[in-house]
């Protein structure tokens, strides 16, 4: 996982009133935060707002950050809660948020929203298959495969036990596999 050992020092400088240190932390992690949130909400403008919300909440809660843990998992915990709150406020998607055992239900998703995003994102098979997954599955796949978080780091960031991390991750990958095979991947 890409985290930086001097994050804690930067947080210390922020707490001492050095706002330039916070500017550095934003620059360091904004792409990662934005990318994972975008995977979840699939709307670039919302994702940008929510990524900003994440850093604003982080700044206000900096004194509660424990430097024993990586700053980025703490930051992703805030990003996760911010994105989930946003999705919960969106009635069309709330059903698909948190039920591990529920079967995949395509009608849970806001099709118009997804269609409009499809025009912006690339049309690769992975993206098409990802688009059919519930947000929490898209999130855990991004944390594991894009951010290269370990099970324990995901557990820390999402506030769920490692056992649940494995169940969710394995289900997400199995769903991806089924979707991609349905879509004809890897193709003739």
């Amino acid at each position: 996982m890409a985290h930086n050992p001097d994050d804690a020092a930067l947080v210390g400088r922020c707490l001492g009133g050095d706002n330039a240190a916070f500017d550095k932390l934003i620059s360091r992690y904004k792409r990662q935060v934005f990318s994972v949130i975008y995977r979840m909400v699939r709307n670039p403008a919302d994702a940008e707002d929510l990524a900003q919300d994440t850093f604003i909440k982080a700044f206000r809660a900096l004194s509660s950050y424990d430097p024993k843990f990586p700053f980025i998992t703490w930051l992703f915990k805030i990003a996760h809660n911010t994105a989930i709150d946003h999705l919960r406020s969106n009635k069309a998607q709330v059903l698909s948020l948190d039920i591990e055992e529920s079967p995949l239900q395509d009608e849970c998703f806001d099709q118009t929203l997804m269609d409009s995003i499809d025009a912006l994102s690339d049309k690769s098979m992975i993206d098409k298959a990802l688009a059919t997954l519930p947000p929490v599955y898209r999130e855990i796949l991004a944390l594991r495969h894009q951010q290269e978080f370990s099970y324990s780091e995901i557990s820390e960031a999402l506030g769920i036990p490692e056992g649940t991390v494995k169940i969710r991750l394995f289900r997400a990958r199995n769903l991806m596999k089924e979707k991609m095979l349905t879509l004809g991947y890897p193709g003739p």
Partner: protein
Amino acid sequence: MNCHQAYEALQGLIDNSLNKKELVEIKTHVRNCPACKAEYRALKMVAEGLDRMPLYETSPGFNKEVFRRLGLEYKPQRRPAWQSLAMAAGLSLSVFWLTALAAALPTLLMGAKAYKLTQWLHHPELILPSFQSAILKSGLAAYQTLGFAAKVAGWLLKSSALPTQMAVAGLLALVLVFITMRFFRPQTSL
């Protein structure tokens, strides 16, 4: 290991999270079970596709907007253009002068020696043409400057702040230019 147990181990294999014993068990099973081999291939294909998920860029004003929403004044990290320019100028000047001094060192030492031989006269310009006198004087001045420059260089190397080093090196270069121009003025008037 049966196929049911292999299901979780296959995922662990994808995530590189198995210990040695588990690794041997799942590899043995996959070798002998076409169904699990196919399952592993499919999962691996998915994982490799997911590993290529791109990172997305935020809009250019992202940091500034966060600061604005926090009610904080935003000062960009980038150093102002004039500072970068001054640093670049200082650096190139000091590199130029250090190189020039090193190249001219033997000549300068000879000049200084010659000056010492003739210093009993106190006023070489009385018996020498003015340009030769000026060259001798500048030789000695350069000799002394070199000693001073060595001291300054030592101090600069000990000082850790790069902007300070650059600023002083730039200043030194300007001083050297000034001194040289003064010493060579008699020649230009010839």
